[in-house]
């Protein structure tokens, strides 16, 4: 048996893992959706084909993340979703638009296809913006002030840019020729915006929250945690240099921007996590204050210990099956 005090820590860790995997995986397919070109049907088809086998499973990580919040921290779940009622509703509409557009565009009369393409693009953008806005409001502790709204607005664009960044990097890896070059250009531009966004959050966050500033300045942890932004910024620079040199001979290293972007996501996420732990609602509620009953957490934990590795295994298997450059997708 696991001590009851540890259960909330384990669950917040699991939830963090789900959020991180969600941001990386649905991040790239949302990014691909945002960048969907309306002027080139062949490229649009290839881009959609590159995410076709994955988007649904990617989105499931969001369901798991919100599910874990609901299971393990029901009090926080209520507070968070009450505060974020409107942006959550808007995000859901965005998710609906893109989720169904994906299937409709392949099945409707050719004349209607552009409508669903637009719906896919717009839905992806709405989803990304809404998620960014919610992240901003969360970081600001759901404060209702001009500063908070401005910050959340910026966060909305930051997250959309970050998704475009990882999405473009995904396309660089999965496509070739003209589309790959186009994606490399997108990736560079999105990378710069993203870099500016991360730098802004690094500067803003400690200034707004003195508690976080103190935490980032306290020795000896500081020695370790300051590596996070440093490595992060170095990665931005390296990826930018790689992207500049496309097309690469034999396409060697086409995976580098994507893997690099994944690490940037990982570092940014750890930085945020480090800033807020053990709060589940920043400044208001800790994980222990809002946790469910231990017997419920135990019950789901055993399942999770068995099932999560299996999920990871078959997810990897599915990526293996569709390894390599994208091919036309056909419904068989």
């Amino acid at each position: 048996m696991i001590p009851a005090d540890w259960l909330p820590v384990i669950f917040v860790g699991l939830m963090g893992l789900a959020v991180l995997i969600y941001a990386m995986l649905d991040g790239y397919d949302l990014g691909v959706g945002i960048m969907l070109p309306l002027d080139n049907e062949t490229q649009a088809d290839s881009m959609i084909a590159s995410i076709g086998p994955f988007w649904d499973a990617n989105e499931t990580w969001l369901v798991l993340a919100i599910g874990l919040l609901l299971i393990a921290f029901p009090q926080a779940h209520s507070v968070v979703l009450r505060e974020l009622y409107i942006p959550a509703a808007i995000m859901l509409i965005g998710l609906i638009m893109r989720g169904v557009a994906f299937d409709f565009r392949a099945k409707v009369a050719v004349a209607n296809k552009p409508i669903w393409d637009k719906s896919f693009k717009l839905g992806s953008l709405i989803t990304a913006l809404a998620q960014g806005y919610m992240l901003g409001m969360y970081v600001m502790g759901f404060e209702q002030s001009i500063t908070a709204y401005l910050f959340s607005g910026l966060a909305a664009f930051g997250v959309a840019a970050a998704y475009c960044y990882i999405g473009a990097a995904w396309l660089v890896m999965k496509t070739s020729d003209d589309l790959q070059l186009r994606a490399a250009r997108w990736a560079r531009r999105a990378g710069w915006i993203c870099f500016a966004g991360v730098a802004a959050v690094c500067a803003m966050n400690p200034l707004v929250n003195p508690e976080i500033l103190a935490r980032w300045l306290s020795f000896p942890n500081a020695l370790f945690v300051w590596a996070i932004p440093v490595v992060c910024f170095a990665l931005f620079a390296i990826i930018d240099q790689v992207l500049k040199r496309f097309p690469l001979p034999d396409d060697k290293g086409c995976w580098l921007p994507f893997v690099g972007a994944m690490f940037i996501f990982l570092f940014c996420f750890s930085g945020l996590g480090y800033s807020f732990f053990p709060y589940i609602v920043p400044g208001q509620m800790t994980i222990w204050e809002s946790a469910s009953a231990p017997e419920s957490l135990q019950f789901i934990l055993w399942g999770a210990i068995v099932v999560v590795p299996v999920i990871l295994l078959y997810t990897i298997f599915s990526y293996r099956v569709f390894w390599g450059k994208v091919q036309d997708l056909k419904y068989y």
Partner: protein
Amino acid sequence: MIETLMLSRIQFAANISFHILFPSITIALCWLLMYFKIRFDFSQDPVWMRAYRFWVKVFALSFALGVVSGITMSFQFGTNWPGFMEKVGNIAGPLLGYEVLTAFFLEATFLGIMLFGINRVPPWLHTTATALVALGTTMSAFWIIALNSWMQTPVGFEMRDGVAHAVDWWAIIFNPSFPYRLVHVLLASGLTASFLMAGISAYRILKGDDKRGPRLTLKTSLIFAAILAPTQALVGDFHGLNTLEHQPQKIAAMEGVWHTEKGAPLLLFAIPDEENRTNHFEIGIPKMASFILTHDLEGEIKGLNEFPGEHPPVAPVFYSFRIMVGVGMLMIAAAWLGVWQLARKKELSPWLLKGLVLMTFAGWVATLAGWYVTEIGRQPYLVSGVLTTAEAVTTVPPSKVWFSFTLYMITYVVLLVAYIRTLFLMARRAVEIEEITPEENPNFHQLDENLATSGEKA
């Protein structure tokens, strides 16, 4: 506050009504797809593969709509019904969690391989992927029905400081109404998918499709329906007896029994009058309700008078129940008639084909009606005897709920119209596609381009 409550209820009802349409197709359709695939694997007869290819597209589209509307629903627990999670979250949470862990990931991951992987994995693995998706959709139903049944007939818990705590998980999952409800729901899905398949296949034949494919799927779905429909009536009867034992107020509303009586008639039609607590224009079969429910002509049925303030609104439950049973009877008749005609003449008469087209969505009507019986029938409680719906609702101001409600409704109406139109469009397009046989093209497995790429790219 009442406005937020009513709006939230309507919004949730709209959401769940929209959502349930799609799992009610996909759960059973996926098993039918697996059946087609296995028949193909063993016989190598291309007609099975063509059936698979057409219906897997319908599956993919229905699945996508189910996924997006399902995510919307899971968010509403938090946005509109925070009291639900605060009070019974210790029980509802893990059940929902197991649904995500054991079902969602399984179906979502193997869906990719099922839809797009046929040339990338060996045939047996593709069939396995289809089976795993089918298993995933069914597991999903298992967990969600476990939770819903627990909300109807809660056991295996104790209240501490006003919060439900789990005592016996086995009892919680396999609560008294769970087995009946699960089987009833799975059979409903089987019927919904069968009649959808029969309707669309009949439509293709009426549009001049003389290939083997639509005839095969029509026959398969009719035989399937002919077995399931009467089974469903039987299971429904057992489910009713179980409800009488655990939720007699729901039965009283379903049967329109205002006052406890012996030898109650089976009302075929009536207009329940909530204000005067009586029915108008009753048409009934004497003593039949008592006989069906207690297996005794003079059996006593508790009336709504025994549950003052604790019983559901009568009219919607009463009418929904009659719609469900009526459509169910129609299904039995249509399926048996179809099988009979097939056995005698090898084909269906044009009027029956037209009738089946009209019944394409009969499963939806029956499922929704049945869902309303059970869900409205639980009111005023969200969790019977533990938590009322009014206690669970959010404190979000009505204006915000209006906003989300309007957004959802517009989206759902557009999607429903698009979905139905697309199904029939796909059917019309399939009529025009040439049939390629293995004799003409030995590499048909890879090269049936005509069918595979006729606008279906990505």
